[in-house]
C-alpha cells in the first residue's frame, strides 16, 4: 500500500477522488463510489425541486460512512457567486472541503484564474480547505499555495474531453515547486493516465466522466483505484534512471562463442 493522503488536517484512505456527475442513475453512482475505495466525493448545488426529491444525493451519500463530501462551486460565474455557493454548501454538509471551480465559458469550461484567486483568498479566511480547480500554471499554483489553499487541482485536459495528461510538462513544474498536494482534476480517460499522473508525483487524481461514461462504471472505478495505487507505489519506489545506451540485464559472457563450428 502507498502512503496516505493528507489534505490540511484531514487524512484520506485513497488517492482517488471521485466526481458524482453524469452517472446513469444514483444507484450506479453509489456502487461506483464504493468500488473506487475513495474517501472523498464531489457534489454540486442545485435548486430544490419538489418533483425531484428522490434525486437528492445527500441521503444516500451520507450513508457511506467512510466517504466525506467535497461540495463544488460549479455554476459560479465569478468569485462572489463561488463564495456564496461555498457558504450554502457548508450549511448543508458542514464539510471543510471545498472544490473551488469558476469556469464561466461553456465552450471550454477552462477555469478563470483571476476570479478563482480572489474567491480562494476569501474562502481560506472563512476556514475552508480550499481546493481550487485551475489551469496547469505553476505561477498561479504557487500563488494559491501562498494564500493558504489546502491543495491545487490543475487540469490534465478540459472537463469531460478524455484527452488525458496534455499538461504533463507544466504538471512536472507544479509538482516540483508545491508544498501542498497536487491533484490532477479533469481530462483523464484511462487508468493508465491516472497511473502516469501519479508516477509524475501527483498526490491524487480526481475523475468523474472517465468512470461515469464507461460501459461498466463500477468496474472502471475499481480499475482507476488500481491505476492510482500502482502509480503512487511506483513513484514512492523510485523509477530507474533512463539511458540513451542499452545496459544489459543478463551477463554477456562469451562461453557460447564459436561453438557452432
Amino acid at each position, binding site marked *: 500500500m502507498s502512503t496516505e493522503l493528507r489534505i490540511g488536517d484531514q487524512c484520506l484512505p485513497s488517492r482517488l477522488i471521485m*466526481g*458524482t*456527475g*453524469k*452517472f446513469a442513475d*444514483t444507484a450506479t*453512482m453509489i456502487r461506483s463510489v464504493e468500488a473506487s475505495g475513495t474517501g472523498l466525493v*464531489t*457534489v*454540486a*448545488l*442545485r*435548486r*430544490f*425541486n*419538489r418533483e425531484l*426529491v428522490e*434525486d*437528492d*444525493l*445527500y*441521503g444516500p*451519500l451520507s450513508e457511506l460512512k467512510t466517504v466525506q*463530501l467535497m*461540495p*463544488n462551486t*460549479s455554476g459560479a460565474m465569478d468569485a462572489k457567486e463561488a463564495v*456564496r455557493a461555498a*457558504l*450554502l*454548501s457548508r*450549511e*448543508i*454538509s458542514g464539510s471543510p472541503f471545498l472544490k473551488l471551480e469558476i469556469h464561466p465559458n461553456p465552450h471550454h469550461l477552462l477555469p478563470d484564474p483571476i476570479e478563482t484567486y480572489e474567491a480562494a483568498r476569501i474562502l481560506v479566511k472563512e476556514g475552508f480547505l480550499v481546493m481550487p480547480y485551475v489551469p496547469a500554471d505553476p505561477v498561479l499554483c504557487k500563488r494559491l499555495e501562498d494564500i493558504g489553499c489546502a491543495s491545487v487541482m490543475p487540469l490534465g485536459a478540459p*472537463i469531460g474531453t478524455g484527452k488525458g495528461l496534455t499538461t504533463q510538462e507544466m504538471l512536472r513544474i507544479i509538482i516540483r515547486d508545491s508544498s501542498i498536494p497536487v491533484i490532477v482534476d*479533469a481530462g483523464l480517460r484511462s487508468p493508465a493516465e491516472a497511473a502516469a499522473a501519479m508516477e509524475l508525483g501527483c498526490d491524487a487524481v*480526481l475523475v*468523474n*466522466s472517465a468512470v461515469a461514461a464507461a460501459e461498466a462504471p463500477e468496474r472502471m472505478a475499481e480499475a482507476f483505484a488500481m491505476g492510482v495505487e500502482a502509480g503512487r507505489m511506483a513513484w514512492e519506489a523510485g523509477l530507474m534512471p533512463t539511458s540513451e545506451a542499452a545496459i544489459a540485464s543478463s551477463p554477456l559472457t562469451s562461453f557460447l562463442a564459436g561453438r557452432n563450428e
Partner: protein
Amino acid sequence: MNLLVNGETVEHSGEGDLLSLLTEVGANPKLCAVMVNGSVVPRETWADTALSENDEIEILVFASGG
C-alpha cells in the same frame, strides 16, 4: 403573503417564518440551504427569520456533480 421561491411565486399561508415556508414547499430542512434576498441564512436562525412580502428565497440541495 406572496414570495418568490426559486424563481416562482408562492403564496405563503403559514407562520411567516423561513422554517414554516420550507415545510410548506416540502423541503427537508436537514438537506437544504437557504438564501433570502441574496444572503445566506444560517439554519439555526430559520425559525426566527420573519419573511416579508415579495422576498426572494432560494432553496438549494446537493445534486450530482464533478
